[in-house]
């Protein structure tokens, strides 16, 4: 399995790197959506999969990043690229501030509260708070991507922007796995009392997970705003959060599981148009079946990321 993954990732990334040149423009758009939603699902995985917190409001942070980019670009004339730092930072700060008072809540309560946050967020957008969100229509007519004065208006350029964001996300997640904060998330998910009793301030790490997950979702929001040159409230409704939640839960907290989930939820409906109306129905059944047959997800997280010198039954190789 681990051997397989060793080859699977480079192959997957190589395919993704050349993909837009093999697709027509309609499918390029689908591929971009796949990349963006994968990043959001991965960000949700940090909160739900790795830390076990039932966050049902990930679309909020996704939307907040998208609106940050849209507002800064449209109202203030910043270039898309220049909005990136704030499109990460503002959702991340909101993630921390919102998580602070709620992370101690039990799973089901946390779920309800985060749904509430998501609904309030969409209401704020709809009602054009502060006159900057554009109300129900949102904001449209954003600039296209440009870097150092070079205009990158083509869809292929947006694809590579999305691909770069995915690579950055995968890189961060790999760093997280091999770090003290990343392990702390696993420990507190497995057994919070044991984690505290071994010296982990679980609260800090839960808030950290929310901040990090929100920041990454925000970055995905920038790409989303760029793809459509527009943002509108309905793209960030609570039902989107349900999808991200389900993808992590059904796929399992692993990269192949999440890719599979995003593919089934967002790409298959494009291939089989009739499937679009059926996808919730089918996904609902998949969820039920997965939770009964494979409660840890179709492709569960694998642990055991320990240095090689510890394996092989002894210390003598070190």
């Amino acid at each position, binding site marked *: 399995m681990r051997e397989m993954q060793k080859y699977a990732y480079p192959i997957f990334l190589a395919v993704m790197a050349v993909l837009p040149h093999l697709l027509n423009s309609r499918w390029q758009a689908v591929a971009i959506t796949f990349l963006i939603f994968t990043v959001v699902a991965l960000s949700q995985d940090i909160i739900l999969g790795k830390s076990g917190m039932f966050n049902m409001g990930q679309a909020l942070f996704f939307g907040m990043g998208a609106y940050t980019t849209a507002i800064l670009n449209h109202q203030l004339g910043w270039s898309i690229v220049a909005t990136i730092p704030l499109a990460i930072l503002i959702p991340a700060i909101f993630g921390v501030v919102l998580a602070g008072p709620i992370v101690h809540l039990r799973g089901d309560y946390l779920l309800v509260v985060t749904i509430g946050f998501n609904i309030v967020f969409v209401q704020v957008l709809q009602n054009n708070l502060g006159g900057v969100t554009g109300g129900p229509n949102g904001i449209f007519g954003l600039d296209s991507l440009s870097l150092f004065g070079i205009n990158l208006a083509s869809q292929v350029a947006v694809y590579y922007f999305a691909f770069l964001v995915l690579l950055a996300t995968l890189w*961060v997640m790999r*760093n*997280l796995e*091999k*770090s*003290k*904060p*990343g*392990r*702390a998330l*696993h*420990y507190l998910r*497995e*057994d919070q*009392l*044991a*984690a*505290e*009793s*071994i*010296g*982990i*301030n*679980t609260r*800090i790490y839960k808030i*950290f997970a929310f901040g*990090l997950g929100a920041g990454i979702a925000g970055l995905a929001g920038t790409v989303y705003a760029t793809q459509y040159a527009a943002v509108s409230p309905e793209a960030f409704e609570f039902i989107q959060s349900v999808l991200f939640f389900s993808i992590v839960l059904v796929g399992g907290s692993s990269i192949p599981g999440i890719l599979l989930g995003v593919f089934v939820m967002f790409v298959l409906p494009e291939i089989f148009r009739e499937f679009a109306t059926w996808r919730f129905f089918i996904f609902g059944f998949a969820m039920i079946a997965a939770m009964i047959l494979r409660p840890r997800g179709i492709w569960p*997280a694998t*642990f*055991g*990321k*320990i*240095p090689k*010198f*510890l*394996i092989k*039954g*002894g*210390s003598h190789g*070190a």
Partner: protein
Amino acid sequence: MGRNELILKDVTKRFGGLTAVDALNLKVTEGQIYGIIGPNGAGKTTVFNCITGIYESEEGSVNWRGEEIRGMTPYQIVDRGIVRTFQTIRLFSQMSVAENIMSGRHIKSKQKLWNGIFHTPSSRRDELENWKKVEEQLDFFKLSEFAAVPTGSLPYGIQRRVEMARAMAVEPTLLILDEPAAGLNDKETLELLETIFKIRDRGVTVLLIEHDMDMVMEVTDYLTVINFGKQIAEGTPEEIQKNPAVIEAYLGSEDDDDE
């Protein structure tokens, strides 16, 4: 900072109408192997929970090295050198033995939150140093062959060893063991005794709860006997063995164990 002493004064913990720990006094001095014994439901585990911050006692004081630790959180107490194991083993069961032990390095690791996002040369060095410490514990507890195995799939006796290894990875000053021999066979119990002596020889004070009378008499330097949350006797194992109150309360109730 005082000496490495743990002093409980009039510690009382109630659950509704039940007084699980009733004005308990005890003093554990540096280098001791200190035992707490008592019949089922006597309040032993509750005492440990009050020391380690899982519960806060309603009354009394828990003093460690001259500092009041009552009311602190578990992780603050770990930070002060007190680490425990659980009567019902609490490992991170889907994670490997090595990862479980690595959790004990958490407070010793110098990595910051942002090292979860990007690494630096010093965070990589820190990571490696801590894995090396895990390796030491794997060797000490003879767990090397299980390093990559998820703990949930291991036999009970090995799980107990992992839990102790995890606690020792913190490099504690005071190690608290809640019935470490429960569920072990005779051979494993003998190994456990040896391990406890070795741990003490490394300068760690040990406080343990034990049901197995033979083991308690063999391993401890000093004992407190509690029943219904109250101390009914204290002394060396020899003194305790002769104490009529203990014989009545402890041995008397042992007949009722299967009620």
